[in-house]
């Protein structure tokens, strides 16, 4: 008696691979909605200010999101895997401070970049070890390290600041690769591609989704859950280090308050991009569009001379709005 017994099974059914084509799914996706909103904001901006539709001012606008987005890509993976890192802005402060120290010791551009990345990576390792080895919840660990890392910067710098970074170092945050294309924009684009490929096209990315949806089943399935999480914390630290290099280079100075509050903007970017804060779903294209959208809104409001406080109110409303609108539609249709 086997499964192929014709009396038992009506006929060997062929289960189709997919019902809806990937293209049809894409049309109805969160990313498409976001893109629509981004286009609308772009058009609104171009009507609102005569200075908006200019290659150079658009190029300037990208600085509003490129550094945050570098971190947001890694953060997206971390949040999809069900963890979070709230210490990223403080990692920037610590990296920047360390670079300042190296600069004062006479370090050149190479040494500065290396310091920034290495300190970022070490901070990520510290967070990751506490979470994966001791099994502590990442939200608590990184709230702790958020104070810790920035605290060290304050001890080193006090009220002071590091200034006088070497000229070559300015290239990262102020340089242009070609015409209006900034170095940061190129880094952003390359990272978007790399993270997109890693998350959507590799075994590692698949494991990230599996862990975020059900880490127990992922473990039973032979996924080295703690190792994957450790890698994600390291990546987030490294990306914070890279953001610190770019930001420090752009500002040309280090104060202990550098990048303060940026962790929430990064998380906002990730969530706006459609990544579930509970883990398990989201995409890199979504985060890319969210980054551009946030940059456009901030820049548009800036052109209209809207003060920073109002801007943050606007960003907050946008986040709640974009998340609530689909839910409202669903409720209306359910009636």
């Amino acid at each position: 008696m086997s499964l192929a017994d014709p009396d038992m099974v009506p006929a060997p059914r062929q289960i189709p691979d997919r019902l809806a084509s990937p293209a049809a799914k894409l049309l109805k996706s969160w990313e498409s909605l976001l893109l629509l909103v981004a286009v609308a904001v772009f058009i609104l901006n171009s009507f609102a200010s005569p200075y908006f539709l200019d290659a150079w001012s658009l190029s300037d606008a990208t600085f509003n999101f490129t550094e945050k987005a570098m971190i947001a890509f890694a953060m997206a993976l971390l949040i999809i895997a069900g963890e979070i890192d709230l210490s990223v802005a403080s990692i920037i402060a610590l990296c920047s401070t360390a670079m300042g120290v190296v600069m004062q010791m006479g370090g050149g551009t190479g040494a500065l970049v290396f310091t920034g990345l290495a300190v970022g990576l070490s901070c990520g390792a510290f967070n990751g070890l506490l979470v994966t080895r001791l099994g502590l919840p990442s939200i608590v660990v990184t709230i702790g390290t958020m104070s810790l890392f920035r605290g060290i910067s304050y001890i080193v710098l006090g009220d002071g600041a590091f200034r006088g970074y070497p000229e070559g170092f300015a290239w990262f945050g102020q340089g242009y690769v070609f015409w209006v294309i900034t170095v940061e924009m190129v880094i952003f684009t390359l990272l978007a591609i790399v993270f997109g490929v890693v998350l959507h096209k590799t075994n590692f990315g698949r494991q990230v989704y599996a862990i975020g949806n059900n880490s127990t089943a992922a473990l039973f399935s032979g996924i080295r859950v703690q190792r994957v999480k450790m890698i994600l914390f390291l990546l987030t630290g490294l990306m914070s280090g890279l953001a610190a290099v770019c930001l420090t280079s752009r500002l040309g100075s280090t104060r202990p308050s550098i990048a303060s509050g940026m962790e929430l903007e990064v998380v906002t970017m990730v969530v706006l991009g459609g990544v579930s804060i509970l883990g398990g779903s989201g995409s890199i294209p979504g985060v890319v569009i969210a980054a551009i959208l946030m940059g456009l809104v901030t820049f548009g409001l800036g052109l209209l001379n809207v003060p920073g406080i109002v801007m943050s109110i606007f960003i907050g409303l946008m986040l709640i709005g974009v998340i609530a609108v689909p839910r409202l539609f669903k409720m209306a249709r359910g009636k």
Partner: protein
Amino acid sequence: MAEASPEPVLELSGIVKTFPGTRALDGVRLELYPGEVTALIGENGAGKSTIVKCLTGIYQPDEGEIRLDGTALRFPTPQAAAAAGVTAIHQETVLFDDLTVAENIFLGHAPRTRFGLIDKGEMRRKAAAILKGIGAEIDPDVLLKDLGIASKHLVAISRALSIDARVVIMDEPTAALSHKEIEELYELVDELKRQGKAILFISHKFDEIFRISDRYTVFRDGQFVGAGRMAETTEADLVRMMVGRSVEQIYPKRAPRIGGEVLRVAGYSHPTEFEDIGFSLRQGEILGFYGLVGAGRSEFMQALIGLTKPSKGVVKMGDKVLAIRSPAEAIEAGIVYVPEDRGKQGAITQLPIFQNVTLPSLAQTSRNGFLRMAEEFKLARDYTQRLDLRAASLDTPVGALSGGNQQKVVIAKWLATKPKVIILDEPTKGIDIGSKAAVHDFMSELAGEGLSVIMVSSEIPEILGMSDRVIVMREGRIAAELEGDALTPETLVRHAAGISAAEAA
């Protein structure tokens, strides 16, 4: 139906409910009569849970009619269903641990004082009266979390009585109960019948169905197949209606071709869970692990695949001593474990079928760490087809499947790793007869192909029907190893319960 019978209390006809890709209910009907128990019978995926959800206002049927006492009505919300007197007692009933028994019984419809406040005294009195009425000795002031599972069921039933339910739906109410508790539940069902309530009883266990039901209704693949009086049918007829074919024997006969030793475990111990476990497993063999719940069988298996650390012991595969520290290493060594808890440990229910199947085999389907979708679909198709999976597409989330089909995905997922040893922990728990037979057939087919199977099971017929050899565990130790004529229900129970042969003799 020709017999003279009372008018049905509740009558469903032509109910259609579709979900994307599947027609869960396709014009089914169902009648419930006062003072009678109607058993709803069908395989997993036949539409039983869907109709319960339509009846309790959780789903809205796309077509069809619900009539209560002859009047057509709709249940747009669970509250509307409750107000109409339809109540359900689920496998895991929704009650509140931190409220008292009386509060649980009267939540949402508590008696009020003149000032609109909850009349606690009156509530307690009424709760006590209801509990007494069903013969439950439960203090209404006790917090629910301090009660056992059986008592919680009694509270759920009391709640059903308190809202003066006319229709009581019992969805696998005995799944978590002991024998004694099940007997008490039967008495309670009799009491509910005397009170004239119409009862819909859903169960996979035929002895139960024959014990307490007056009528039956059978669904298959979302369609109505038949209904009638229990007295006029037989188990064989019902099974035939359920599966659309006759099942002469549930356990496949096979002539095992047992080869050389594949796995040897010696002196395996854990500080608290198990002690000195040792056995040998041969190629093509099905080795049963029997024991009471808590005997340490699952704990041992999970240590074997590296989920927990044993304190000492040796595992040998052929001549190679294995030091498995994680499930990933177990899979590499060719030992896989299909866990008991499908939803939490087995499947990732939010992810599509094909991604679940390929998750432990990504190294196989990918190239240089990059996914290859075509390979994934191929692997998933190969293995799910062998198990006769029913699904709309391989892109469907596993959570949308019935329990039996979820189990097929989970087993397919592990087989796709091409293991040498497969450990199945309660492989057919909570799945319907059809899926059960498919799993059993498949197990013997696998053993026939030379795979070694370890089957942890608490069901004696399954252990006896499937195993070549059985290890009985009790309190973390091996109590006996049985084979051939020594393998009887009595010896199994005796060793599992710790009644020694000397005592019994």
